[in-house]
Structure formats: C-alpha cells, structure tokens
C-alpha cells in the first residue's frame, strides 16, 4: 500500500485509511530514535530538495533529518541566498531543481497555492511544508500522530484549538485531519481571528477560553502572530494574554489527563506560559521528535512507483 498521490498539498487529499497508513508507518520510523545507527538505507540515490521561501527552523531541520536518516541526498535551498534574489520565478526555480534530479521537492512559501503551482510545473513529487495562511499538512499529521500516541485513538476525542484560527495554516490542516479521523473540534479566540462559516463544518466556536477547554482531551495552542496585532485585529498583547493565554491556573480547570500541544515556535508568556510547556501533560517537545518520524514516513510512502502514473492534485 502506498499513497496514490503524486503530491501532498492538502490534508483534504488523504482518506482516513491513508492518514492511518502514514501514522502507522511513522510509528515504525520513530524507532530510529532508539537505535545506535540512525540510518535506514531506504532512499539511497533519491534527492530531496528543501525549497524554503520563508524562515523556518524546525520544519526544515525536521525534513532534512528525515531525509538523511532515510539515506536520501538532501539539498537545502533558501530563497534569500539563491537566484530568487536575481528574479527567477517560482516555477522556473522548481524546473531547475527538477533538472538537477530532485525526486521530492519540499516547499514552504508565503503565498497560498505556491505548492500547487510547483506541483503542476514539475514531475518531481511535491510536499507542501506551509503555503501562506492556507495549509501545513505535515504539521497536522505530526499532531495527529502525537495525539494518537498519547491518547491511543483519535475517534471521539474533543480537541480545542486556541488562538489565531483565521491566519493559521496549521489550524486549517488540523481541522480537516481531526474531523476526518472522527474527533470533535472546538476553536477558541477573539471573533476577529475566527473565520466565518466554521460551524457549517461541524466545528464548535468559542470566544471564551474556559468553556472551550472544559472537558477537552487535547488543547492545541497556536502561536500568536505579533505582526497581526499591528493591524488592529485585537486590542493588545496584554489583553490577549489575559483572555486567552494558557496558564497553569487555567489548565487546572481542564481534564486531569488533558494533552497540551503547540506547533512552535511559542511566544512564552503570551499564548502559553513557560511552566505549561514544561508540564508533564505537555507534548510540545515530543511533537518535534514526532515531526521527524512523520516526515520519514511521508518520504518513504511518496518514493515508490512511477510518479508519472499518479495524478497531480495541483
């Protein structure tokens, strides 16, 4: 069994069975952390290119390690030091990378749809590592993996996502993935940061934090993007912290075995307090580890067969 898609652009592409396949495969890949030799020979001779137009530490490092531990040759291509500065277009850059033999292109870009554009332009397989405020499917998969690992299941769980839902590609991908796996999704945040129409997708919307985390199995805190504050979407950071910041006091009212997650990088003391990140119920550090395992699984599942036979969703 493999993923019958040329590219991974949106989590909406994946069926429940395919998501389960990715998570099961990641479980086996995660064992690499316990081994003296952190190397599988699986992707020898394959070329993985990280094409990053936006700053990223953990996603790029995570893909780089995943590729290297699977024995692929990994090339990092950072926009600020490349011919992008000389005016090369996105699809030209992608075609250049294809001509250099890239089997898989991992792309992060500030514009929604950038990954789709690249996927249409090249025969290489494309993984969306975040396109603007649109989607971040690999982050959502690693979050699903972390929840399943800690809770033993996804079906029937209540997951609360807190923060800037409107601009969050992580939230968008998570809502798709969690709903598909049978979890109940709640979102909480100021009305200006919650997109209209979420209720129609079965999501429960809260504007106060306390009722949103009451009875939740998982609380997933999003990074507050400080640059949004300048646009007047919420009055002040201080007010945000007072209303939505996840503190130890607020956590005391949640379920005793609640799982706390944050996709990183966190603004400590803003959306989440330092002592909550370090709490035993927090999986923030482990999410990073799981990210490598999930990306190893994806690289493996997207390396088989002949990409030309697979339909591009781009």
């Amino acid at each position, binding site marked *: 069994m493999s993923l019958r898609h040329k590219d991974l652009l949106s989590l909406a592409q994946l069926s429940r069975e395919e998501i389960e396949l990715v998570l099961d495969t990641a479980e*086996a*890949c995660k064992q690499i952390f316990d081994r003296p030799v952190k190397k599988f*020979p699986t992707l020898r001779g394959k070329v993985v290119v990280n094409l990053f137009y936006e700053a990223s530490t953990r996603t790029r490092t995570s893909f780089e390690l995943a590729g290297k531990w699977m024995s692929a040759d990994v090339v990092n291509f950072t926009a600020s030091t490349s011919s992008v500065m000389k005016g090369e277009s996105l699809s030209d850059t992608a075609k250049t990378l294809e001509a250099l033999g890239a089997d898989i292109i991992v792309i992060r870009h500030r514009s929604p749809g950038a990954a789709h554009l690249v996927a249409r332009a090249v025969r290489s397989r494309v993984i969306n590592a975040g396109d603007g405020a649109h989607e971040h499917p690999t982050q959502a998969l690693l979050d699903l993996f972390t929840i399943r690992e800690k809770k033993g299941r996804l079906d029937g769980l209540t997951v609360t996502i807190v923060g800037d839902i409107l601009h969050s590609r992580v939230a968008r991908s998570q809502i798709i993935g969690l709903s598909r796996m049978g979890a109940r999704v709640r979102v909480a945040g100021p009305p200006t940061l919650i997109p209209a129409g979420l209720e129609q997708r079965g999501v429960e919307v809260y504007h106060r934090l306390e009722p949103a985390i009451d009875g939740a199995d998982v609380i997933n805190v999003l990074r507050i993007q400080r640059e949004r504050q300048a646009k007047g979407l919420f009055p002040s950071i201080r007010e945000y912290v007072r209303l939505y910041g996840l503190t130890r006091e607020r956590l005391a009212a949640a379920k005793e075995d609640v799982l706390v997650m944050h996709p990183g990088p966190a603004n400590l003391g803003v959306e989440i307090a330092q002592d909550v990140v370090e709490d035993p119920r927090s999986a923030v550090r482990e999410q990073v580890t799981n990210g490598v395992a999930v990306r190893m699984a994806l690289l493996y599942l997207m390396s088989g067969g002949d990409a030309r036979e697979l339909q591009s969703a781009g």
Partner: protein
Amino acid sequence: MKAKAEIMDADQIRRAVTRIAHEIVEANKGIEDVRLVGIRTRGVPLARRMAAKIEEIEGAACPVGVLDITLYRDDLTTIAQQPVVHKTEIPFSVEDKVIVLVDDVLYTGRTARAALDALIDLGRPRRIQLAVLVDRGHRELPIRADFVGKNVPTSREEVVRVDLVEVDGVDRVSILSR
C-alpha cells in the same frame, strides 16, 4: 495460482521445528548467548515455537525478537506499491550475542541479506545464523542457511506457500504453480 502438492503437514512442521531447536542448542553448546529473531511475518511464529522447544530442552528461556526488513529491501524503487512498514521489536541487545535469524522460506536470499543489514544496524552480534523451515533453492546471493527444516527442489515458476496456525489458521506447506 493452483495448488500442486502439500509438501509438509502439521506433524512434519512440528518435527522439523523440534529438530532445528535441538540443532541450535547443539551447534551453540547451550543457549547462554543465543537469541532468536523472527523475520516478519511468518518467521515470527516459527521463532516463538523454536524458543518454546529450546526451553523444553534446556529448561531456560530463549528471548525472541521481531525484525521488519521493509526499509532495507533492495526493490523499493522498482515496485509500484510500497510495502507496509511494521515495527521491529527486539527487547534485548544484540551486542556480542549469537543471533539466529528465523524465516519461513529461503529462496533468492534477498530477504536474508536485508535482515543481515537491519540486524547489524542494531549492534554487532558475535555471530549470525540462519534457520528456515523450507529451502527451495535458486539463490541470487552467496547466502546459505545453518538450519533447514526441509530442502525442496522447485522451479522458479512455482510458489512455496507456508501457512502457520498463528497467522493463517492452519499448519501446512504447499507448492503452487502459476
């Protein structure tokens, strides 16, 4: 695919497993540093059965591990469907141990090659031995088994199918032809 002949029944499989267990004990002069590692899928129940026999013979338990070789296969880029990866579960250190790899059928030797690589990535065993229920010939690599349940001459057009109670609900080895 049609069945041509049954080459082993439940009793013959049981006797072969018993004999291999005795041979493992004899060849290693006891089982002090011996560990069995079954190759998924059907090597695993075979390894467990051998371990149970060894315990009967020697009065001491012989630990069993499970090896998944999917990520070490040499044909991943040529086959259309990626095989499903399962966990490797080896609850002991392989360092300086005598590891007996257990599989159902030895054919081209490519599975054994992948298993050797997978095992060596986990540490440095003192020695690795190979035990198989059926050796059907047609090696493509310089690999041989140390312990064999039954040698079966076959043609490449035939398929040797091993059914085990734990996986398939019945104990039987049969030859099928395409």
